[in-house]
């Protein structure tokens, strides 16, 4: 049979109603980015294993044929590639030219391999979608734009996030996903470990 890739069920799980679903997901992604530490629900798409619903929905909403996606570690499966190609037409690229990167924290490391933008174009950086085992408003303390006093979020590695914030206005932005929930950590957020703060 020809086109086996197109004959398998890997193509299922896209938006049921693309305009509405993507608009809602975009609103959720924007709210999460605007208020670091705030967890938003997001479950409109069902990507192939092992990607989470929130990560799949984010990619369907944000990626198109001009945004390169880097799949790290276990997330780089033929099923996932087919699914992304069918629903977003986004090219799969290496880490050094990725607009979006998807994977677990360990798989995505080292952070130095991603573009952080240039002083003229700080937007030419990678947005990392980090798949987490758990996501809760508890852990390191966040401060900065979009946060009234302080917020808390369990980050995979607070030190790395501090170093990322130190590069501002350059740097990486993060979406943290777990199941059908998403939170975000833009480069502008100041991260302090709980020990120093309390």
């Amino acid at each position, binding site marked *: 049979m020809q*086109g086996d890739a197109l004959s398998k069920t890997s193509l299922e799980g896209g938006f*049921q109603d693309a305009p509405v679903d993507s608009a809602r997901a975009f609103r959720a992604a924007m709210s999460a980015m605007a208020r670091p530490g705030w967890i938003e629900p997001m479950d409109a798409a069902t990507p192939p294993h092992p990607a989470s619903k929130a990560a799949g929905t984010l990619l369907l909403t944000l990626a198109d044929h001009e945004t390169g996606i880097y799949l790290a570690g276990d997330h780089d499966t033929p099923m996932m590639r087919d699914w992304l190609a*069918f629903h977003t037409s986004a090219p799969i690229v290496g880490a050094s030219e990725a607009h979006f990167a998807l994977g677990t924290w360990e798989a995505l490391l080292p952070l130095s391999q991603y573009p952080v933008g240039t002083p003229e174009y700080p937007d030419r950086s990678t947005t990392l979608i980090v798949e987490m085992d758990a996501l809760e408003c508890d852990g390191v303390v966040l401060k900065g734009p979009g946060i009234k006093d302080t917020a808390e979020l369990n980050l995979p590695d607070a030190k790395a996030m501090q170093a990322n914030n130190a590069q501002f206005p350059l740097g990486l932005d993060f979406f943290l996903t777990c199941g059908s929930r998403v939170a975000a950590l833009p480069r502008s957020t100041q991260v302090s470990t709980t020990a120093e703060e309390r």
Partner: protein
Amino acid sequence: MTTQDERKAWMSLLAKSPAEDLERLWGSFDAAQEHSWLRAPEAGGVMVRGRAGATGAPFNLGEMTVTRCSLKLPGGEVGHGYVQGRNKAHATRAALVDAHMQTAQAAAVRRTVLTPLEEAMAGTKKTRAAKAAATKVDFFTLVRGED
């Protein structure tokens, strides 16, 4: 077993087929219509590109409206439909034909749908060519008696 080229040929045929013809032919083919959507029918624009003399540098000829959809039969076969215009039912039928061409019913689909479509298209092409041929003018120059 179907090859990529064969599929390409029927996809091309379906894309160019008139909506009424496909509706009539697909209506005469008795098949289960049930399917699930992978991508519900949606209309959009595509840029048609051309090459002068088929070998020159590519240029944008213009935009055209295309409707596409993808569906899956209960048996797991995936069909894609891309057709001219904004007729969503037409795109659905094209995708159904593509999907059924991958099942055991392929021969029946070819007989009742694809072959008549092919013939109709060849007929249209021939009629148009004949009409054009009737207007052909042969220019010739008489040798002038000056030498």
